[in-house]
């Protein structure tokens, strides 16, 4: 069959899975400095599914695309190391503060700059918001079908994909014409590792704004190997309407936040000794909690 063009939407996120006690400031706001940034886990699953399709359909091209601050280019390089062919960075101060509606508008404007695509993929949701909204919103704006919570692509032909979806209470197999958008569930296979050869090949991949003006080595290298230059698109490059991006384009606003404090209670502290465990079990039976 003909090679596919796949775009994978990826996001760099704070690692909310490992929120320590110091992740919150005393005033109840998030201490972002104490949180590492990671490649959003579901997006890595999406990248794997894209690379898997590239294995199955020779000549397939996998392009990763991310919107974020300059440092988010890290996950584009990470994608190169694992097998992505191209990366596009969407970065501009004016994109900041975007909710899902403004984000999907921005991503779609960027996708529409591409000559063609067969499948848009992304993780089911990002761990910083867990909203799972950007995928379906992009599909609506592109006027293409969406197949959410994909666990496996069962078959693919020139004009149709068959995929298994993981639902809250079961599974469903659906077929969709191409082009379509898929969001990928964390139950799908984990992403392949970085390849040493590709790390050597792409370790100097940079966006222009990552290269210091006086860094002659990097400038010479990029002139010689243009594939190392990660395209960086701002508001004008994607012809975005400034009223629809960033904070102004976001209907949802945070009114207030409140940090959750675990309520302390008077606990009985026991050891794993026989006597302690037996005492507890007897108390539980006596109080009719169990038994």
């Amino acid at each position: 069959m003909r090679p596919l063009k796949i775009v994978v939407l990826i996001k760099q996120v704070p690692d909310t899975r490992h929120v320590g006690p110091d992740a919150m400031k005393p005033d109840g706001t998030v201490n972002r400095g104490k949180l590492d940034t990671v490649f959003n886990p579901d997006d890595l699953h999406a990248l794997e599914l894209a690379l898997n399709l590239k294995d199955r359909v020779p000549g397939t091209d996998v392009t990763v695309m991310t919107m974020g601050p300059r440092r988010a280019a890290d996950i584009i390089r990470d994608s190169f190391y694992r097998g992505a062919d191209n990366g596009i960075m969407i970065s501009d101060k004016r994109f900041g503060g975007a909710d899902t509606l403004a984000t999907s508008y921005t991503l779609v404007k960027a996708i529409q700059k591409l000559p063609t695509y067969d499948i848009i993929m992304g993780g089911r949701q990002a761990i910083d918001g867990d909203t799972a909204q950007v995928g379906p919103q992009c599909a609506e704006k592109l006027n293409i079908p969406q197949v959410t919570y994909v666990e496996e692509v069962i078959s693919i032909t020139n004009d149709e994909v068959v995929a298994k979806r993981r639902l809250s209470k079961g599974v469903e197999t659906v077929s969709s014409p191409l082009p379509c958008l898929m969001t990928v569930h964390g139950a799908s296979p984990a992403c392949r590792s970085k390849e040493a050869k590709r790390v050597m090949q792409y370790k100097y991949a940079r966006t222009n704004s990552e290269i210091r003006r006086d860094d002659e080595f990097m400038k010479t290298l990029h002139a010689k190997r243009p594939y190392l230059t990660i395209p960086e698109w701002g508001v004008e490059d994607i012809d975005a309407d400034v009223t629809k991006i960033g904070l102004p384009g976001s209907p949802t606003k945070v009114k207030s936040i409140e940090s959750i404090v675990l309520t302390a209670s008077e606990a009985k502290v026991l050891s794993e000794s026989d006597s302690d465990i037996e005492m507890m079990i007897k108390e539980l039976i006596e109080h009719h909690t169990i038994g």
Partner: protein
Amino acid sequence: MKSVFVYCEVENHKVAEISQELLSTGKKLAAKLGCRLEAMVFGSNFDNISSQISPYGVDRIFTANDDRLEPYRTLPHSAIATHILKKEAPQIVLFGATSVGRDLAPRLASALNCGLTADTTILDIGDHFVKKEKKEYKDLLYAIRPAFGGSIMANIINWDQHPQMATVREGVMKKEIFDDNYKSEIVEVDVNTIVNDEDFVVKIIERHIEESDVNLKEAPIIVSGGYGVGSKENFEHLEELALLLGGEVGGSRAAVDAGFIDHNRQIGQTGTTVRPKLYIAAGISGAIQHTAGMQDASMIISINNDPEAPINSLADYVINGDVGVVIPKMIKFYKANAK
């Protein structure tokens, strides 16, 4: 006309539990706003579907009855809902934070160019003063949800691009019949004038819905394991204890991610919210992502190697020890002492 709308999910010709919870919540919001509660329900062969919805105090029910509308598919449901919402222009629209609601609501939000807050756990009505405009907006939806792995609760509002939409987590709101004899006006939607062939390009080939053999919500006792349980094999001890006590086994997101336990047994912010009589947390550190889903248990036992595990601050019994040692002992002493 002001109103609160609820999108009702249908499974096997019945209104889903989550939708009944939403109707109850919607009724309270409508009462605060002094407006009508309306519902939309799309499916097939459901002559009596309205009688399942009316008792929640629903003033108008939009029904679309067509073989092609059940099971749920994104495009036709989205086309019909968009049509209704554009015409009726309600204040508020609620969806379940289920695999249906989370698939449909964002597509609608994009089509309607409005805001959508995901996974809310508290809904309320209140005002907001916008400094820039020097204007007080009255009667807005406060869509309150855990964020940042559950370490904060964020109150999300949307004052200028209506409707205000939210998905609501399952099992958080209480379902309450308003009036068994409540009379609703039924509006039958003419499906064929709204949808076209294009809306049916995605085809369902096969479908397996597990009739929830897992009922964590109703379980009086839950034995729950985290990453600290260490392996799938060690989870078998938890299962044995749960079986013995007449309870269910659950797990944290970390245990599910590690493959120790099935995702449908996940407890926490992105899993099920539970309120059992007894919750045994084995090898669970207690990230707020998890505790948000179990902190209302009447009694909590924490078994952990780490005396500083955050979950210990919620526990009634803290056992400083190894899960692999403690659970078998609990089984042994329960067998020895139970009458």
